[in-house]
């Protein structure tokens, strides 16, 4: 994977210079940017590895929830993502966003796993219809707000599974993880225009799937 030539530093990660005062390693690691943290992990700093995982675990797990066919394998894939990242952290380019680097690893693991998962599970449309039926129950059986919220989220994620992998990945990276288009283009090794094309088609397809049920969903 080659980072884009003009990739900006991840805008969501603030580069904070490391403190020169002796502080506990946990606080010191929290003050490091991803590049410094990766360097410490490469030197065998276990606390830095913990900070790295803790800092990005929510993003990676959320990304995998959005792009992975097999939702039950999300945490396993997320763990495998971090294991591979920690093993090869010396290869991380600090000029590149750490989250994007992790997403690239996670995406590839998800693709490999998805090929197997698709053969085991029923068609995604079947599960989406089941969720729609549940959401359209009579008002007297209306779910609690948090349960409805969870059901809606599941429906969105099921609809995502009906997109192509590039569409799913670009939508998750841009709209869920707020990565800039040029960064996504560098991660996926495709032109920015192609990224936009995938986003366009993905949004259009999502509208086709969800709009008929919009009133029932939210």
């Amino acid at each position, binding site marked *: 994977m080659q980072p884009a030539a003009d990739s900006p530093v991840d805008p969501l990660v603030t580069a904070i210079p490391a403190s020169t005062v002796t502080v506990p390693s946990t606080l010191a690691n929290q003050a490091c940017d991803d590049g410094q943290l990766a360097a410490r992990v490469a030197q065998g700093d276990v606390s830095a590895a913990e900070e790295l995982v803790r800092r990005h675990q929510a993003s990676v797990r959320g990304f995998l929830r959005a792009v992975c066919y097999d939702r039950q394998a999300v*945490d396993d894939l997320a*763990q495998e993502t971090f*294991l591979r990242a*920690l093993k090869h952290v010396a290869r991380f380019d600090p000029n590149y966003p750490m989250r994007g680097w992790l997403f690239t690893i996670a995406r590839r693991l998800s693709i490999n796993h998805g090929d197997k998962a698709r053969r085991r599970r029923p068609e995604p449309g079947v599960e989406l219809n089941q969720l729609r039926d549940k959401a359209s129950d009579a008002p007297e059986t209306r779910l609690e707000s948090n349960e409805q919220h969870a059901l809606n989220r599941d429906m969105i994620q099921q*609809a995502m599974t009906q997109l192509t992998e590039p569409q799913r990945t670009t939508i998750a990276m841009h709209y*869920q993880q707020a990565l800039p288009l040029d960064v996504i283009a560098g991660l996926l090794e495709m032109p920015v225009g192609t990224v936009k094309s995938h986003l366009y088609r993905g949004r259009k397809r999502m509208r086709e799937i969800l*709009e008929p049920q*919009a009133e029932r969903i939210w």
Partner: protein
Amino acid sequence: MSKDNPTKNDVFGDDAMPESLDAFEEDWVGLLAAPEADLDQSEDAFVQGVLAEHAAACLAEPTVQQTPEEVATQVATEQAAEESTPAVAGRIAPAPRALPYAAAAALLLAALAGWFLLNPKQPGTAGTETAKNTQPDSLAPQPSTNTPVANVDPKKIKLGKLIAKAQGTVTSGPFGLAGSDDATTLLPIDGLLDLFKNPVPDLKEILAPLEDEDQQSRA
């Protein structure tokens, strides 16, 4: 190209796809980005699980665990591989450099005799154990200060010339056995014995090129 029906290879300009989401899209994108409250593992459990697996992987990498049976199989395989190699089986005769000096002398004498038998009337060239002849290779008789053939002690052989040649004191010239018409004064037999009592330090280095020359002359 139509914005509503893009083809596979469409490349969108900056104004082709709206960056902002409409209300409908905002809703489902918001749900997509919402933090998961029903994750299978808590954050702490997930993080500790990753660190435990990573530590285990780091410990496992430096060494490859093998059962005793696997070790025995590997050793047997390596031994079989060694025995099957030509060098161990003695395919190649040991190089002259590895020969003991006595064996080297025997080889030298055998080469000497063989050459004489194949080339009985080769012109000789001058050369003694003390000669410092630096003439280039040539079959033409060279001015010599050696003792004439008739005065050569039969016990003398041309081994000294061979040694001198190898040492660079004589660069060319065939040789013959003592008593031949083209025999030249060479190392006396006593000197020959001395040679093996006090072998030339680089005798092994001398023998190898001489052997090559012998093979070339046979060719």
